[in-house]
């Protein structure tokens, strides 16, 4: 164990407080009985949580966001498993170029991506459709999934696939029984990270939604530009709770440290 000095502990504490303070404020505001953003709240009331149910727009948007997150995370993962195995497992011509291509969305400013997607989807006649949204989100979240899958693949002993082959397994069996289970922490971690990134994405999405496919972040954003009632805080609080619950479940099953630090599987 590395023992931290007092200063290091203090730094960590201040840093954690800095990260969490906005969340505490949002959650605090959500419980206010008043009709405006107030912190600390003057009382405890579930009034603004009740208000969510009276605003089906928000619920619809949340459903769109959940579906969008699940669909795009799943598609991105399905792309990144073979890509990660190829890039992490072997040397071939164009390997670096392929990796750079997959990671390139990280380097393009999201506003630029948003404008580009808007043009592209209009040309394809997909503007405002759910399919168009999924397509754009897949492009944005692929780098996240690929990074985690790659971390798992590079930690993998290439001999284990050979061992399985020597014992009589064909290519598909090796993948299904040996390789995939061995990299599953990276795959699940990548999916979760991708889901959260998609669920949270605003900058690109705001360019390409229409009223029927509005996502939760876009809905919150447009709500804030019109009114400033604590409804946004209560919706955010529910979203925070949902994310925390998702993280807890994943941590229980696979261990978050392992997933996000990418320690591999051995």
């Amino acid at each position, binding site marked *: 164990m590395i023992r931290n000095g007092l200063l290091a502990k203090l730094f960590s504490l201040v840093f954690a407080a800095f990260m969490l303070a906005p969340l505490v404020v949002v959650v605090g505001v959500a419980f206010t009985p008043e009709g405006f953003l107030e912190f600390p709240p003057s009382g405890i009331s579930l009034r603004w949580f009740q208000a969510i149910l009276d605003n089906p727009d928000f619920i619809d948007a949340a459903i769109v966001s959940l579906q969008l997150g699940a669909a795009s995370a799943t598609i991105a993962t399905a792309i990144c498993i073979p890509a990660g195995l190829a890039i992490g497992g072997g040397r071939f011509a164009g390997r670096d170029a392929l990796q750079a291509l997959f990671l390139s969305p990280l380097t393009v400013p999201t506003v630029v991506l948003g404008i580009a997607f808007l043009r592209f989807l209009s040309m394809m006649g997909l503007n405002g459709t759910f399919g168009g949204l999924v397509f754009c989100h897949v492009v944005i979240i692929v780098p996240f999934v690929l990074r985690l899958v790659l971390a798992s693949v590079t930690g993998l002993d290439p001999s284990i696939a*050979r*061992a*399985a082959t*020597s*014992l*009589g397994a*064909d290519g598909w069996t090796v993948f299904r029984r040996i390789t995939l289970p*061995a990299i599953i922490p990276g795959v699940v971690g990548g999916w979760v990270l991708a889901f959260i990134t998609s669920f949270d994405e605003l900058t690109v999405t705001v360019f390409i939604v229409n009223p029927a496919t509005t996502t939760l972040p876009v809905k919150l954003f447009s709500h804030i530009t019109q009114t400033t009632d604590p409804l946004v805080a209560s919706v955010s609080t529910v979203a925070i709770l949902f994310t925390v619950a998702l993280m807890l479940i994943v941590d229980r099953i696979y261990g978050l440290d392992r997933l996000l630090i990418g320690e591999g*599987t051995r």
Partner: protein
Amino acid sequence: MAILELRDLTKRFGETVAVDRFTLSVEKGEFVSLLGPSGCGKTTTLQMIAGFETPTGGSIALNGRDLSKVPARARGLGIVFQTYALFPHMTVEENVGFGLEMRKVPADERKRRIAATLDLVHLSHLATRYPRQMSGGQRQRVALARALVIEPELLLLDEPLSNLDAKLREEMQLELRRIQQEAGVTTLLVTHDQSEAMALSDRIAVMQGGRLIQEATPFEAYDRPTNGFVSSFLGKSNAIDAHLEAGGAGTTQLRCGDIRLDAPASSHGPGAVLVSLRPERIEFCGAGEGIVSGTVVERVFLGDQWLFKVKTGLGELLVVRRNSGRREPEVGETVHLSWQAEHLRLLEAGSAA
């Protein structure tokens, strides 16, 4: 009858020749080692036998069946990898049973065979553990059990002991030999560790630069190396450059600078030779009886033996003496060395590594 027949096996990677017309046959039940330094082509040879590399030329036959068109998964070989390559998400039982499962062996027979093999490697009590919960030596046994349970015609061992610490390695050498003999399985070991090859094998094939240099029993390879490389790679050896000349009355003599030595009987013709002399064949003796004398420049205590480096007219010679509790010469002391001419090995000049 030969189980494995390698004939003129060759592998080129672009310009470099990794394995060069390598020919070897392994008899049923035999334990043969491919021994050589890293980069000598031994691992490439193993990969070709296993089916993970395609030969550039030559042939591999297993039990008379040509393997060139047989994919790796259908060769039915048991392979123990250097890293053990255990499946991390499976228990010991599941690891060992994987090959049987692939062969569609019924569950009850599978269970019986897993139990029998785990018993053979003394791991029955750890059947439900995961690899990460086990020590290096135990993982090694699992890897061995996984390869043996399919009753392979040939067991391939790729540097199986190199990841273990020295003491455990010695224990596992004996274990490996016992298991191999109990299972009666024909085995090909690839290693760079000469003591491992000598301790385990019936026969050693020494490789250098992709070629087979010598193929012999461990004793023969050590005691009668045919080549300077083999003599220096197997154990310690003194290599002396000398000239073989005719002496008086039909005898031959070795000339080494100003020093003349009695030569052993050999088929070598006159000319430059490399003389190899094992350090344990040299003795200390009285002033009058020595062949050469010199000064001790280094002395190392190894517990059961002493290792001396003695500076002589023949160059620096290594001398090994059993620790018999007597006082031994110290650094700086003058010593006289003698040996019997029959212990000298005359090898081709310039064949040292």
